[in-house]
């Protein structure tokens, strides 16, 4: 391309538009305004491609747009190299069917979004209740026929959700137990009652923290895993395959997972209680001059079995919530990989929210009945 030849030049006498140089994507931003202004009275009668050194689809698009706007035929193109006319024709063809684009966003979309989100919550509650019903209806049929117990699957899930989670549950509750004892002792010391730290850690872990911490950990660890597993199966049509093979996805996928959590969560809760109290014991021995023997003695004197049951009775409820929401969100996955991520997030948020909500309701209930 030489400086003497501008990219496009209109001959005022013959009405021929002569194009020069590279008409490619790299210069599209400069070339585009040039041809967009050629219309109406100074529309070309002829387009001469003789001076073009390179033409790609971006350049062809500009020529095609000019032809389309001025309703010119391909015949006005002269001195084209082989293939160039076909390329312009192909570009011209695409202009006849405009491509749909989403409308731009407006601030009023905020209201629509808020409405959608509210309806989503209502629908979610409906679906969860429906799903609970579906599973409840499937359980007796399976329970009465030992042949349909999926023992291998059950053991696999017990290992994944229970055994593999054991170290993290033990470590975490040990540390929380230590922290609570330390905090409590600091406050109680001012009243000369630091020995009550034993009751503090004992009660709180038996009644609340043992089961709550375990459930929150499993909500993050297991509910997300269930959603991702089932979601990946859904997006690869494996769920549909299960149905067409005459099996029930709830029986094959949901019941073993729920049963595994029903077995595992109470067991892990006991571990959590023991480890939390152990954390308190270690802090008492090292920081508060309460020897382990004294700690255990005091614990035994104040211990009542009802505290243990208040904690334990919540474990199966949380297990069902975690398993069902994890599985339900998995079934809601649609198509894309992105959807698996969205549903996994949603399942963790929902399970943690519901676990804490239910725990608060249980606390109110036990308060009322005086336990």
């Amino acid at each position, binding site marked *: 391309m030489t400086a003497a030849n501008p990219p496009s030049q209109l001959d005022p006498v013959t009405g021929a538009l002569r194009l020069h140089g590279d008409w490619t994507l790299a210069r599209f931003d400069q070339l585009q305004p040039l041809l967009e202004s050629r219309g109406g009275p100074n529309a070309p009668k002829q387009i001469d491609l003789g001076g073009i050194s390179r033409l790609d689809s971006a350049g062809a698009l500009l020529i095609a747009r000019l032809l389309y706007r001025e309703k010119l035929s391909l015949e006005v193109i002269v001195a084209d190299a082989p293939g160039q006319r076909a*390329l312009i024709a192909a570009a011209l063809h695409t202009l006849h069917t405009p491509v749909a684009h989403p409308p731009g966003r407006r601030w009023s979309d905020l209201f629509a979004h808020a409405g959608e989100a509210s309806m989503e919550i209502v629908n979610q509650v409906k679906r969860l209740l429906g799903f609970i019903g579906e599973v409840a209806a499937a359980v007796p049929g399976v329970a009465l026929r030992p042949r349909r117990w999926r023992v291998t699957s059950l053991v696999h899930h017990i290992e994944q959700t229970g055994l593999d989670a054991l170290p993290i549950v033990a470590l975490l509750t040990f540390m929380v137990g230590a922290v609570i004892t330390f905090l409590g002792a600091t406050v109680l010391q001012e009243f000369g009652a630091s020995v009550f730290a034993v009751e503090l850690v004992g009660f709180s872990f038996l009644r609340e923290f043992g089961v709550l911490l375990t459930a929150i950990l499993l909500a993050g660890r297991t509910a997300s895993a269930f959603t991702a597993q089932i979601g990946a199966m859904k997006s690869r049509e494996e769920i549909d395959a299960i149905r067409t093979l005459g099996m029930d996805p709830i029986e094959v996928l949901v019941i073993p997972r729920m049963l595994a959590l029903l077995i595992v969560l109470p067991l892990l809760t006991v571990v959590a209680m023991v480890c939390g109290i152990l954390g308190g014991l270690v802090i008492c021995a090292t920081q508060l001059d309460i020897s382990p023997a004294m700690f255990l003695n005091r614990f035994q004197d104040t211990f009542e079995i009802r505290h243990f049951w208040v904690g334990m009775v919540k474990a199966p409820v949380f297990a069902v919530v975690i398993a069902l929401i994890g599985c339900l969100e998995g079934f809601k996955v649609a198509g894309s990989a*992105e959807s698996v991520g969205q549903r996994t997030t949603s399942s963790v948020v929902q399970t943690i929210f519901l676990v804490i909500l239910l725990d608060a309701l249980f606390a109110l209930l036990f308060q009322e009945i005086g336990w």
Partner: protein
Amino acid sequence: MSAAAGENVIEVRGLISQFGSQRVHDALDLDVRRGEILGVVGGSGTGKSVLMRSIVGLREPDGGSVRVFGQNLLTVSTAERRKIEQRFGVLFQDGALFSSLTVSENVEVPLREQFGHLNAAQRQMLADLKIGLAGLPDSAGDKYPSQLSGGMRKRAALARSLALDPDILFLDEPTAGLDPIGAAAFDQLIRTLRDALGLTVFLITHDLDTLYTICDRVAVLAEKQVLINAPLREVEAFDHPWVRDYFHGPRGRAAQAATGKTSLG
């Protein structure tokens, strides 16, 4: 377009690809000439996709060399390599569209990244062109990949691979999953683009109709090597059990009868 037609744009020499103890390619040689449509055929598991991934630089060869435009992708600097990679358009088997973006946003991604000076309207103009060229219906632009059928996803992915007007187009089974009318239109589209843009096309396919209608040469992958890389007539006549079964089985004969007389090979 300064280089003469017929010159090799891709040269694979002594390529070795190995997965664990399993060797997929053993001292494989392949040439792709400028401006041709090369069909790559072979049974399942003969490493057609692996060969493509080795050429575009997604997989490091376990031996041998791959030269593209006369340069070895493994030894050039990263900046050089990016420049060469910009001249590739790749259509993956399942499309590999970004699932969180609409079709037209998908096509705009390479434009946005490589040609930042274009404004939004210009980008959209170019994206619309590629969507139209790929033969997508007009309503497809604002759809998400998960809302499209398999064939439409292919076309959307082709639109994206064409976004930067590549010199070499790599197509991994482009007509698989398309209905016969759509597949034939797709073949014609590839030929039109090749003729107009001087594209070189590396086309992995199982579709005999595609081979007969648009491929200039055909490379047969078997026994860990390229058995033959030649115009279709010579490949048909090649004496090898797999080649015989492939071209002279019932489907091969049907494709021959339908298009053999007008075959470019």
